[in-house]
């Protein structure tokens, strides 16, 4: 069963009690600095000196390295090879395969891009692992994000796996009635059509019922909403956020200045 629908893991760490916004800004800040900084080794340093220590500070090492192995490494590896082979830069050929040349320049470039991708996904993973989705939404709503908007985001995140499971059920049900979903491409395209209507029309009725259900629980109440969780926003949070903003600005300025 979908016992865990979010990435969040509950731990008692120094990262978990940070304000959710601080953690978003942290992830975005790392991503932006790694994109904009003109220094070649920025992403590598960010990965080793910022992200890996944060993973341990946040006590989510097992979860992080599992997803690193399963998701981040394959993605980064793929990008590395694509860039190394197909980036038409540089003269210093160090390796030749059929009509493809690998130059020293393209290798260096590929290494940089792949590390940057690793940093981007890692920063985001770290954020998801240490931030409770409900707290995130409550905090953003409190800061003025319309609750309807917050609801759409969070319920979509939760309901997508449910839709997927349902699509599987419908496919199984249709197949047991003789529907062909496994032969040639065109036949399969044709056979998707009967799957669409139960999924969509089923969903429309569901949407109506769900709208009634949340309305019955005061979702559109004009009263000021409260939150089950106390979400702290200490001065250290603000300090971290402004610090990150400054880092990002410095990176952008350096980038503009040097190019």
């Amino acid at each position: 069963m979908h016992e865990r629908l979010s990435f969040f893991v509950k731990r008692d760490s120094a990262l978990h009690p940070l304000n959710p916004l601080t953690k978003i800004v942290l992830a975005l800040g790392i991503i932006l600095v790694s994109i904009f900084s003109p220094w070649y080794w920025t992403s590598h340093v960010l990965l080793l000196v910022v992200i890996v220590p944060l993973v341990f500070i946040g006590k989510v090492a097992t979860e992080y390295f599992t997803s690193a192995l399963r998701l981040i490494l394959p993605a980064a590896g793929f990008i590395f090879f694509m860039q190394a082979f197909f980036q038409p830069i540089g003269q210093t050929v160090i390796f030749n395969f059929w009509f493809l040349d690998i130059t020293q320049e393209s290798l260096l470039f590929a290494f940089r891009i792949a590390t940057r991708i690793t940093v981007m996904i890692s920063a985001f993973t770290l954020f998801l692992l240490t931030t409770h989705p409900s707290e995130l939404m409550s905090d953003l709503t409190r800061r003025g994000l319309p609750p309807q908007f917050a609801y759409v985001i969070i319920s979509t995140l939760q309901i997508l796996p449910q839709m997927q499971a349902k699509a599987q059920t419908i496919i199984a049900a249709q197949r047991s009635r003789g529907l062909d979903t496994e032969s040639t491409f065109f036949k399969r395209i044709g056979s998707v059509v009967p799957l669409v209507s139960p999924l969509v029309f089923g969903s429309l009725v569901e949407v109506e019922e769900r709208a009634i259900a949340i309305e019955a629980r005061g979702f559109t109440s004009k009263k000021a909403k409260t939150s089950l969780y106390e979400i702290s926003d200490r001065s250290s949070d603000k300090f971290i956020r402004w610090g990150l903003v400054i880092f990002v600005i410095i990176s952008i300025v350096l980038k503009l200045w040097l190019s």
Partner: protein
Amino acid sequence: MAFINLNNVTYKYPLTKTPALQNINLQVNEGEFVAIVGPNGAGKSTLCYTLAGFVPHFFKGEISGTVEVAGIDSSKSTLDKWVLNVGLAFQNPFNQISGAKYTVFEEIAFGLENTGVPRDEMKPRVEEAMKLTDISNLADRSPYSLSGGQQQRVALTSILVMRPKLLVLDEPTSQMDPIGTREVFGVIRKMAEGGMTVVMVEHKMEWIANFADRVVALKDGQVLMEGKPNEVLTSELLVENGFGVSRYTSTAREAKKQGLWKKEKLPVTLDEAVEGFKK
């Protein structure tokens, strides 16, 4: 004056020709537990939506007559205010999960967050409600990982926690086993004794007979009959109109034809049946 006052209510869904409710007159007192029975399409759910304010505020369509709960006229109120007095739980538990919460505890607190209940009041209220419906052990589970019957309990608890004056339930036990059904009926009875008014659509006749104060039989959008559970649920009129009846009632009715059932009154529950056959 009665707590619920429906006066000549007729309602048509948009784009339909025949009304789903026709000339409904219904008075319910505070703290009364009324059960609604009727065949498919009788208008039971529509009546629930009407009491809960979703007809006409959500479904639109044409309504005439007056709907009053706690002295307030529904047409003069708005849905967001109406739901503070009237709680609604319905059949499909999956669609009642907000989808915005990751644990059962948070799910139940959702209504309290929306209506601005202070945090220190929220936790004890959620805990108390979960204890009442016996789901405290599910607090940290994901609502999606539960069985249908457990989800129905969560849906009911999510409404009870808001402490409505009127509780409207549309087949809230359809996915529960007999033990679960009995427990939930017990909880609802207790709420009614505590002063909450309850209107509940239910097919399980034995349980209605055991727990409800009054039964209203609906057919084709009209009130066919109303009265004491035993009177209504054993009436010939229900059989003639294609209502489902309790197996004890139908057994005793057959037995009566053969001269094996001696009593005037037919039974609805097992106890009544045993009692009657003993004589």
